């Protein structure tokens, strides 16, 4: 069974986002990420609209499980553990 590729919306300066990346890396959970604070102009507006759709508070980290899966807000190990291959 293919493992879902999680989508992580993060901030490059955020320690909780950094811990999330470290956890996903160390547990070989596939993911892609975008550091929203490093985006500018239209790219920033576009990604913020995406984040807002998943997490109206627009707080970080916001982790999205694809295909209508859950949205995990904040670095929450026990919720991420479900996606360990």
């Amino acid at each position: 069974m293919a493992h879902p590729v999680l989508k992580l919306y993060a901030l490059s300066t955020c320690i909780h986002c950094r811990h999330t990346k470290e956890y996903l890396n160390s547990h070989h959970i596939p993911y892609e990420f975008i550091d929203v604070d490093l985006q500018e102009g239209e790219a920033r507006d576009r990604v913020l609209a995406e984040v807002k759709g998943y997490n109206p508070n627009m707080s970080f980290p916001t982790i999205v499980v694809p295909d209508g899966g859950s949205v995990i807000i904040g670095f929450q190990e026990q919720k991420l553990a479900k996606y360990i291959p």
Partner: protein
Amino acid sequence: MNRQGESHASGMTPHSLRNTLQPLQEAKGYYFNRDDSMTMELLEQLLVTKARYGYMACPCRLANGTYEADKDIICPCSYREQDVNEFEACFCGLYVSKEWNERWDQEQQSTPVVPDRRDPGNILL
């Protein structure tokens, strides 16, 4: 981006920033997280946001980029008092309660996950 502990344009390092802030904040009843891996990293990132925006925007919140629009998240943020009272830690985890640190001395525990109290309307789209 700077390597860990490297001084920034202001000449400040995380250590000198800590030495400057610690007595001031403890006098107000706010304590740096005893978990140094959190505190030093967060102080480093405050120097990054200071260099980027000109003020120490909370490293765990999306800054708008202007002082006026980010006043509520300039560290120490406007939400620190409520967060420390309710969760024993501020949103990013830099400041904790005295009791939390005392418990950390007995048994290392991870910093609480604190929901962001900031009104998303403060983020300029």
